């Protein structure tokens, strides 16, 4: 009868070491975390060359966007296309002009959205401005955009 009267064993979980480890991990992550803006991409057109180019394809002159070096007044821009010439004063205006050139269901523009657009920065133009011009063409709805090689 006495064997049945065993006292209940008190079991307790020692959580102090776990909390220590959890806080150490927390401090580590807080100290090493580095938040940054997400990286996004523009898909760039690489011109077909050599054997990959279709020799029978009709080559319409591309729309060329010239980007000059940045000055205090800003960045001079110019659009050249067949029968079209414009000097937008900002990238927003550049995008608007390009949008006006693009043919859509509701708008009789001169060019399809697949027409080639070439960004032609001057050698001293900033990469930031070159990418801004690229962005303006993407915003206008063109899909076939690339950079033109500069000529020395």
């Amino acid at each position, binding site marked *: 009868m006495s064997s049945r009267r065993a006292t209940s064993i008190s079991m307790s979980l020692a*959580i102090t070491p*776990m*909390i220590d480890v*959890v*806080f150490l*991990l*927390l401090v580590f*992550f*807080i100290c*090493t*975390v580095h*938040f940054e*803006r*997400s*990286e*996004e*991409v*523009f*898909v*760039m*057109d*690489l*011109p077909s*060359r*050599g*054997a*990959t180019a279709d020799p029978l394809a009709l080559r319409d002159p591309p729309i060329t966007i010239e*980007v000059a*070096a940045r000055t205090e007044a800003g960045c001079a821009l110019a659009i050249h296309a067949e029968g079209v010439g414009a000097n937008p004063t900002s*990238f*927003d205006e550049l995008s608007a002009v390009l949008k006006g050139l693009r043919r859509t269901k509701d708008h009789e523009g001169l060019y399809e959205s697949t027409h080639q657009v070439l960004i032609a*920065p*001057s*050698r*001293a*133009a*900033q*990469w*930031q401005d*070159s*990418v*801004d011009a*690229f*962005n303006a063409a*993407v*915003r206008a709805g063109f899909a076939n955009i690339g*950079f033109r*090689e*500069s000529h020395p």
Partner: protein
Amino acid sequence: MSLIHTRGSARIDSNLTPMIDLSFLLIVFFILVARMGGDQAPPVALPIPHDGAMTPSTATPRIAVNVLAETPSPAVTIGTRRFGTAEADIPAIAATIAQRLRADPKLSIDVRADRTLTYAQVEPALRAIGSAAELVGGTKVTVRVCALGGVSDGNE
């Protein structure tokens, strides 16, 4: 004799469960957002287009061609390999890209150039990519220009 003196010493317990819950939640969050180990993309001050129309960078396999603004002259890095941006460096850059493309033709090429550079300093990398595409011959190469998401304040 009042009852208050017959009580034993008061025992104060702190309830640790909510704190542990919160700590674990924070740790799970940090583990998920942490990027352990260096990838092939060194920190570059990428362009920040105004009202950007970029597409999110998917986790497709890629070759990052980084153009870093270093003094005295910019450098091009691909993985651990390092090149200059002179005309003479273009064939070596192109050969490195072509070698990677032959191993995996589905790789996309990401151009990650510092926004403070001039086009003349970035162009050798673009020309090397064009040369690499010619070297692999006939392969459809996807080239992407990297930029930072978000809207700039127009002063950058």
